[in-house]
């Protein structure tokens, strides 16, 4: 890149006389009558020649070097002093301050997110415990209800059975009683009928034993 730049610069410099010739020609064309202009151009060219030392670069005129170096160093020292004492510390302070600000915020955020994770874990554990406790309670309640129902059922059945059996006893007692009564009535009826029909006065107990033997025969036949 540099090489082509220098090359083009040299090319352009070699074209310079041509351009100046053109310019002079142009001046002639535009103002052919004014002789003053040529004088002006001449004097200016003389000035240029004086400045340049024969058309050379002003950069290679050593008379201007001390002044340039002196002022460059003055400006450099002033800038260096102000930069190093005031401006650069101020900017680095601002940058550090910002970095610190960001760092503390990040640290805070990390701490808070850790806290949130802990709380979440606690919450999950609490929920799990609560769920376990609830299912335990439900199970015990179910068990209790079942045992109570079983108890209630069994006591009810017991009572029911007792009542049935006592009722059966009473029924069979009542039936036996009724059978006995019926035998007695039958014996009395038979004794009274024998007295009235045949005039035989039959003993009640005799009659009863006859009835009993008859009824037992009937029972056996049945």
């Amino acid at each position: 890149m540099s090489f082509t730049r220098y090359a083009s610069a040299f090319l352009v410099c070699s074209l310079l006389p041509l351009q100046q010739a053109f310019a002079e020609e142009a001046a002639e064309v535009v103002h052919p009558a004014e002789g003053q202009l040529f004088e002006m151009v001449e004097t200016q060219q003389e000035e240029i020649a004086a400045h340049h030392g024969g058309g050379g670069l002003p950069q290679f005129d050593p008379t201007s070097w001390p002044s340039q170096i002196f002022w460059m160093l003055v400006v450099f020292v002033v800038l260096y002093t102000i930069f190093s004492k005031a401006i650069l510390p101020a900017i680095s302070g601002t940058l550090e301050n910002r970095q610190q600000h960001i760092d503390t915020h990040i640290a805070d955020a990390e701490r808070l997110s850790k806290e949130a994770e802990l709380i979440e874990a606690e919450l999950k554990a609490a929920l799990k415990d609560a769920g376990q406790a609830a299912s335990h309670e439900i199970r015990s309640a179910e068990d209790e209800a079942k045992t109570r129902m079983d108890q209630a059922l069994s006591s009810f059945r017991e009572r029911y059975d007792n009542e049935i059996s006592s009722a059966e006893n009473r029924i069979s007692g009542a039936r036996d009683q009724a059978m006995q009564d019926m035998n007695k009535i039958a014996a009395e009826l038979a004794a009274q009928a024998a007295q009235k029909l045949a005039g035989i006065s039959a003993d009640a107990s005799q009659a009863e034993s006859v009835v009993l033997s008859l009824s037992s025969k009937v029972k056996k036949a049945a």
Partner: protein
Amino acid sequence: MATHDPMHQFQIQPIGERLILGGVDLSFTNSSLWMVIGAVCSLILLGVASSRKSIVPGRLQLVGEEIYGFVENLITDNIGQKGKEYFPLIFTLFMVVITGNMLGMVPYSFTYTSHLAVTAALALLVFFIVLIVGIVRHGTHFFHLFVPPGVPGWLLWLVVLIELVSFVSRPVTLSVRLFANMVAGHVLMKVIAGFAIMFATMGGVAWAGSLLPVAFNIVMIGFEFFIAFIQAYVFAVLACIYLKDTIEIGH
């Protein structure tokens, strides 16, 4: 005409009274004026930018911080953490060169970095700082810079000679690179502009001939801004590399 002369822009002209101290001409010139303008511009920009210290930077503050960060990266990339103490030096060098180059792009301004005396002064400043830093840090061990390790004895004299020449030629290349780039670009722009004016003043339809130089100069101006930045960057990077070589002398 004088203004058509592409070298006229590099003319040094004294401003005000001549200042001669001990027989040396130290007059304030147009070159000095633009150095002062550059210094004032960079001080105003960075002064205002650094006076705003908000956590979320505004535009101007961001510009200052970006320049700071740019030079800081340049130093950490080229020198490393040891380079922090040379930060103000590299920063000032970069600012002086880039303001010189950029102000040179202002029409009718003076490009102080287009003068060999100025670039040589800066390059010699870097050279002597490297020398002093090397001797202060390493003492006589500093001269091991010219004796690379692992060179056979019979070749040593040649290698030392080469190293010595390359060390001494550093300020020359550093100053000539910047000065030549600035001169070449500015001369080229001026000459092309001169062609445009020549065609325009010819009369008739010849004015159409000025379109090409004008178009070319538009491209050149963009390119010159790029060169102005890249040369300041190269100057600062090379200063960093020279410092690094001296700080880390092989054992």
